[in-house]
């Protein structure tokens, strides 16, 4: 099982909460005021940070999916 981060940029409102929770996974586009997903398949060490970034997105623009390779 590995975790996939699914990001819907059209829902993103630029709060940057995701970046603050998991700077390893997210970057931020200051021009367009939007999050940028850097890591779609974070490894297990980053799983809890990925979960935190999904929970803390006030715009519900982030989902996680478990996938079996």
């Amino acid at each position, binding site marked *: 099982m590995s975790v996939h981060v699914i990001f819907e940029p059209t829902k993103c409102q*630029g709060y940057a909460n995701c*970046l*603050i929770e998991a700077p390893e996974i997210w970057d931020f586009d200051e021009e367009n005021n939007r999050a940028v997903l850097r890591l779609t398949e974070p490894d297990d060490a980053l799983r809890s940070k990925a979960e935190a970034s999904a929970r803390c997105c006030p715009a519900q623009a982030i989902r996680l999916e478990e996938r079996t390779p």
Partner: protein
Amino acid sequence: MKRIVVVGGSLAGVNALEEIRARGFDGDLVLVGSEPHLPYTRPPLSKEALADGIDPEQLALRAPDWYAEQGVTLRLGHAASGLDTRDRVVVLDDGTTLAYDGLVIATGSSQRRPAMTAGISTAMDLRGVDDAARLHASFRNGGHLVVVGAGFIGMEAAATARRRGLDVTVVDIAPYPMSRALGPEVGRWFLRRHEDHGVRVLCSTGVAGLEEAGHRTRVRLTDGRTLVADALLVAVGAEAATSWLSGSGVAVGDGVLCEPTLATSVPGVVAAGDVARWTNGTSGESMRVEHWTNAVEQGRHAAATLLGERRPFTSVPFFWTDQYDAKLRCVGRPTSEDDVEILTDNDTTLVAVYGRRGLLSGAVCVNAPRQLATLRRAIAEGTPVPDVVGSGLVAP
């Protein structure tokens, strides 16, 4: 444990419900909430939703079917009025009782109402959707909005109203907007932004009295002036909603007094969100955090504690406020007594770091989200201020 009751149908409560099920609890799960609405998110109420009108679907924390899917029984529109922790019963305001084995207190905060607003029907609050709908409706006729209280919610509402074309005056006894929380430097920066947008900000000024005059209100100031308000918003802060706990044995101070795990003084009872006061291991400080992300994380943590985990809740608090194009993000727990260093200050961007006893205690970034992630880590690691200032750790 057969039945868990969550009191408070909002952000901390919903996250507690979700975590309780995620951890495999398959007994009865009941949500008691005094508002008749399904749980919704509050930050837009002073921002987009106040500008554009309320869209319940957009504000909903979870889709309407989610509660049934999770096996949650809803008791909305009922406040808990009492708690008997010996027999483990919650008393509701209609006189019915609800037995529990485990209880989550998530009643959040309610808006503070100064005594002078008693009997003034024109004075509006801004805490829930109904408040926001009323304030939004009052914008329709334009005119003059007076905001009493230059805290985050007052200043956000002022910015939103100004954008909608109203004349806006803000009154506060403090020397600068939001300065109680963030100090004068950041306050001054925001004062300038608001004045540039045409908001009149009367700081170091108190309200001496309110008088209704038809649908208008006369606001008498301590400096002798009188403002005539077509709409009046009173936003002078919030207090923990704990009155229903009196006599229950649950220890209450400013908030529900929790162990580091978010367990309360009574077995089988935990607390989370705006209502909870606990000692945060990151700084060793006792705190009650009235911000969004804290309610998410504490709701989950309190659920885990209720189901038998024994981990302390530690965090570097985080919040945001949006006013015009200024997106402020704050990490840590700055107070107006901390030493402030301004790293960047121009018309669009502000970066300020706060130090207490030489260590980085907080940071404010306006329109500088990337610096924030770095600073949050530096706070968690207990970094000395000089290592941050002028070190290149934070690019200007």
